[in-house]
């Protein structure tokens, strides 16, 4: 397996609160892995430790063969290769959908405008944002459209991996589907992804592995069906029981 992202013994504390207590895992090229677990388990913090938006107190992160946590690494350069999709979208408010996708290409990757525009349009079409929406500003888009533009913004940079931080948690229920659909398509196209989500249906249909986090640790991991339907740990079982009760029969 060609490992593209490897985290080794990640620790992070805020004051006296230990948020991450030694998390290790790896993601292979083309894989989609899902992290789930109750609030406060440290999922978002873990994701931010991977592109060093938050610096881990201890532990190491590799992207392909570069150790990101090494002090000599130019982290800005490396972040270009790590897509990040936020729960709250965080599209740039003053830019149109197209410009949101283009800005990383023109300003960070320094591509010529024409080429950037071509790549951006392609990325927008991949996430089913049609031409009529390209010149809309974020405030004129629905939540689902915003999140798809955000995915396009990450995708256009041609990243090694895309990290998704609860990408559907801020969406109205009827808009979740369109975002999950896009994410599934990317997973099937073997765009490497690490997804923090409670969408079990998504995990079951495309994930190669589920990692269940609890209290700053990965307590259980394995093939989605196994972890969801035959959990070994009591906390995992309780969590998935709650989720399935909440979502009923929805897949």
């Amino acid at each position, binding site marked *: 397996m060609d490992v593209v992202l490897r985290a080794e013994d990640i620790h992070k504390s805020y004051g006296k609160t230990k948020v991450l207590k030694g998390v290790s895992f790896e993601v292979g090229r083309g894989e989609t892995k899902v992290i789930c677990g109750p609030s406060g388990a440290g999922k978002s913090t873990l994701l931010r430790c991977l592109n060093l*938006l938050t610096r881990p107190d201890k532990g190491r992160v590799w992207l392909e063969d570069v150790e990101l946590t090494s002090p000599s690494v130019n982290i800005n350069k490396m972040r270009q*290769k790590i897509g*990040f999709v*936020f729960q709250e979208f*965080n599209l*740039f*408010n003053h830019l149109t959908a197209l410009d949101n996708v283009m800005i990383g290409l023109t*300003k960070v990757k320094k591509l010529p405008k024409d080429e950037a525009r071509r790549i951006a349009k392609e990325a927008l079409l991949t996430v089913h944002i049609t031409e009529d929406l390209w010149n809309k*500003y974020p405030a004129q888009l629905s939540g689902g459209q915003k999140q798809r533009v955000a995915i396009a913004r990450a995708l256009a940079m041609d990243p090694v991996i895309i990290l998704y931080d609860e990408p559907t948690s801020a969406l109205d229920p009827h808009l979740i589907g369109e975002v999950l659909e896009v994410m599934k398509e990317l997973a099937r196209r073997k765009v490497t992804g690490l997804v923090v989500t409670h969408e079990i249906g998504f995990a079951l249909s495309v994930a190669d592995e589920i990692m269940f986090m609890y209290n700053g640790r990965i307590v259980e991991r394995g093939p989605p069906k196994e972890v969801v339907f035959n959990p070994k740990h009591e906390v995992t079982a309780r969590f998935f029981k709650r989720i399935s009760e909440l979502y009923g029969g929805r897949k």
Partner: protein
Amino acid sequence: MSFWEEFFPALLSGFTETLAILAVAIPVSIAWGVVLGSARVYGNRLVSLIAAGIVGLFRGFPLVVTLLILFFGLPELGIYIPPFWTAVLAFILCSGAYQSEYVRGAIRSIDVGQSLAARALGMSKAQELLYVILPQAFRRALPGISNEIIYMIKYSSLAYIVGVTEMFSVSKRFNSLYFRPVEIFFTAAIIYLAMTTAATIGFKLLESKLRIPGLEVEV
């Protein structure tokens, strides 16, 4: 020659001088305010401290005192600039310090998610500031900045203290010659009013031109 025949051309040349002061001081003070405000939030500890010091100083000095310090102090340092530029410099320092506070507040008001998204894309701190934060913060600071500019239009009259023959100094001179204060100062006041009104309208137009579609309530 009648009083008005003499006063009007003089007033006009004073008005031109006032406009010349403002033509330089307005854009440069805005730029200086943006630089100072950005430095306070985005600068490292030293840069931020220096910026805070500059702001504190020129907000703390009365403008008249700043003017006189520059007028008498710069030559002491071997720097000789015409009074016109002394006045322009004083206005930039004073107004820029006030404007920087609007800019700083506006930067602080931008959602942290915007910074995170910029950094996640691989932007440097400078790129984040330039391409993501300032375009949004500047729009929010604009009403405050326009307020400072309107204020500056009026206190540009203080340039008379260092001998710049701008509109107020012309009016003052004519009043000493003819003692017709009501006509003279009222005329000048109307022209200042016209300028501030034009600035108000100008900034309103700029604000609406820069409004981000869908983001703010349209009234």
